[in-house]
């Protein structure tokens, strides 16, 4: 239950014109980073673009209130998620908490995200060739390299070229990296003794003023909300697209895509509006960028006589091969102050175990043992927000006065922790389908996320925590928590459900992000990922989207 918030969302009056536009070149469904970047590029190239999104246009002035929602209990969903619009099922071996980190609205889930942005490693595009697992991507790092540089400029990335394990790059990051934290300095001594390399983290967060947005001012609530706007969110490019002439229709969930009689071209996106009306937005090109779950649902809801298994689903692969990254972490306490929770972002990581997760290291005072097991990539993080936030504890506890202060002083100050990610390989049993037994607010079947963990992923989780435990032990921490294959959770990176490839029988989109089956339908975003690696996916989503925008523009 939330306190009524008059400024939470702009435009609830119903006076906004949500009727379709005429003579539209491109209709973009979804206003997250993929859709926003494609729309921006096409609009600045002079094309008529309409962006349609299921959620609202959030008032930037509501962000401090949303931050308060994040910190104080009883204030409801930070980004207004939940309810019948967002209903879902999770029928796999493991429950998938779909609504925990996604946002519907202008900006999409980048409103909520952490903001770490990495280029995939070269090996991430070649898992079959290098590791004998899954498939290679139909593109390689060099194909995406100029788009990565472009994406870094667009999002505004603060970083440094000090990561010896990162793929090659020609240009500096647009902004200098955030300086290491005091907590990082504690880790640095232990890592040096073990021969483990630390380096900076590229952040889509302003370390100095950039693109009309301020430098980070340290609210410490990056995820789920940055009140200052220093963290990139895709509403930035929606605004830029609008400035270039694009039109936005918010609070308008697309119900289905209609095709012509041949089934080879999409003719319209049919969307619902808050007043109960339904409209058809026609366009020459359609770009669906609703994330790895809702994009699948829209394609499956768009089945027709020409596409009886769902639109663009001749391969039967739409929704199959769902992948996520899994969180790995070890936490504990030290006998000294660690200075956590001043900021909400990470300043140091370790990618030494990414391309070679079994590698052994040794340093001046010890070693991390190697492993011969078959493992996937591992990304390690040195957290700056280990342990409790005092204000969250204060508002969520059942004490006050001196008792509360004593509890806060006892709980805050000595925590230390590492986090990280490992990835899954695509597995056809992990998939997104329609649950026809449940419907959403519009009478459509809800998405069903079937999710499980395979043995290789579980082994990789255990390997990651073995390394983390070694580092924390060397640091002298009293270890308090270790993530296991049973207690891990998803990073909410929905990948692989509209896989990219050259063979229409083995993939949904081609290397241009265009569906094999429907000539004017493109699906940028993480659904196209062939394998997941273990790096936060948004920079790759952005790079693919810019690549997609080039291809769509050539078709117009």
């Amino acid at each position, binding site marked *: *239950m*939330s*306190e*009524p*918030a*008059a400024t939470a969302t702009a435009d609830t009056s119903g006076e906004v014109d949500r009727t379709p536009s005429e003579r539209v070149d491109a209709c973009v469904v979804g206003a997250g980073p993929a859709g926003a970047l494609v729309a921006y590029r096409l609009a600045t190239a002079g094309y008529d673009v309409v962006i349609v999104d299921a959620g609202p246009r959030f008032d930037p*002035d509501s*962000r*401090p*209130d949303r*931050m*308060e929602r994040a*910190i*104080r*209990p*009883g*204030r409801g969903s930070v980004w207004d998620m939940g309810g019948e619009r967002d209903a879902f099922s999770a029928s796999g071996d493991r429950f998938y908490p779909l609504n925990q980190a996604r946002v519907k609205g202008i900006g999409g889930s980048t409103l909520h995200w952490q903001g770490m942005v990495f280029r995939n490693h070269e090996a991430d595009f070649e898992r079959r060739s290098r590791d004998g697992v899954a498939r290679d991507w139909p593109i390689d790092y060099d194909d995406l390299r100029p788009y990565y540089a472009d994406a870094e400029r667009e999002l505004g990335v603060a970083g440094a070229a000090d990561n010896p394990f990162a793929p090659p790059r020609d240009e500096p990051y647009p902004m200098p990296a*955030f*300086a*290491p*934290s*005091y*907590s990082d*300095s504690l880790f640095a001594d232990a890592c040096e003794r073990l021969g483990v390399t630390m380096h900076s983290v590229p952040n889509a967060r302003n*370390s100095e003023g950039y693109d009309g947005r301020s*430098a*980070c*001012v*340290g*609210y*410490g*609530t990056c995820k789920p909300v940055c*009140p*200052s706007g220093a963290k990139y969110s895709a509403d930035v490019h929606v605004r830029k697209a609008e400035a270039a002439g694009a039109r936005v229709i918010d609070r308008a969930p697309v119900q289905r895509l209609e095709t012509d009689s041949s089934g080879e071209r999409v003719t319209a996106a049919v969307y619902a509006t808050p007043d109960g009306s339904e409209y058809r937005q026609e366009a020459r090109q359609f770009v669906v960028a609703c994330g790895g779950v809702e994009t699948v649902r829209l394609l499956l809801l768009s089945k027709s006589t020409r596409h009886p298994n769902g639109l663009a689903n001749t391969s039967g692969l739409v929704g199959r091969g769902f992948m996520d990254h899994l969180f790995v972490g070890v936490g504990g306490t030290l006998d*000294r*102050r660690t*200075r956590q*929770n*001043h*900021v*909400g972002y990470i*300043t140091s990581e370790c990618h030494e175990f990414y391309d070679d997760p079994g590698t052994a290291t040794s340093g001046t005072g010890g070693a991390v043992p190697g492993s011969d097991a078959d493992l996937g990539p591992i990304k390690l993080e040195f957290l*700056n927000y280990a342990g409790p*936030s*005092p*204000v*969250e504890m*204060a*508002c969520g506890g*059942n*004490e*006050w*006065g*001196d008792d*509360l*202060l004593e509890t*806060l*002083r006892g709980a*805050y*100050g000595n925590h230390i922790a590492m986090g990280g990610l490992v990835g899954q390989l695509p597995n056809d049993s992990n998939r997104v389908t329609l649950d026809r037994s449940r419907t959403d607010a519009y009478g459509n079947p809800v998405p069903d996320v079937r999710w499980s963990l395979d043995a290789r992923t579980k082994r990789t989780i255990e390997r990651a925590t073995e390394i983390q435990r070694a580092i924390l032990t060397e640091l002298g921490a009293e270890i308090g928590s270790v993530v296991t294959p049973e207690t891990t959770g998803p990073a909410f990176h929905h990948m692989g459900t509209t896989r990219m490839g050259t063979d229409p029988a083995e993939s949904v989109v081609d290397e241009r992000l265009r569906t094999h089956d429907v000539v004017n339908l493109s699906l940028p975003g993480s659904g196209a990922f062939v394998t997941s690696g273990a790096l936060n996916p948004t920079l790759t989503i952005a790079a693919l989207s810019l690549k997609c925008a080039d291809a769509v523009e050539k078709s117009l």
Partner: protein
Amino acid sequence: MELSRRDALAALAGAGVVVGGGAFVLEPEEVTFEDEGPTPPDVVETLVATAQVVYPSAVTNLDEFVETYSVARVEARPAYREGVRATVTALDGYTRVHSDEERFADLSAAGREVQLQRMGVKSAEPDPRGTTAERIRYYVVNELLYALYTSPTGGKLVGIENPQGYPGGSDSYQRGPPE
């Protein structure tokens, strides 16, 4: 540790409430409510009286801090104004039934603590539309705790000068603990 009007303005800035460019601060008497119920000074007195219970004894000058923070929040947030006034009415109503005083703020500090305990506020889940205890926890107690522990002085009590919710810049995380 002394709280100040500057602390209140800092907490307000974190909460997105800009008070007259940081220079002009409303007094409770300068705020008006059009309908019947607790007046702005009544609301502020109740919040100050509650702060004397829920804030640690280590902080001083909490009257000015709470007054500055609360008046601005009441002025800037109509939904909060409505909720906190109804909650103050409920608090005072309980006081009248269970004591010889007319208002919660008139009770001694010990009496206020006892009343809040008896009403179950300490263990209540904060909920703006919940039971009386849950609304007191939400509109009064947590409002005060949020103000204190997102302010630099409140943070320093615990050992963090840039607490979550306060835009304290990007230097403090780089510094080690004070000698």
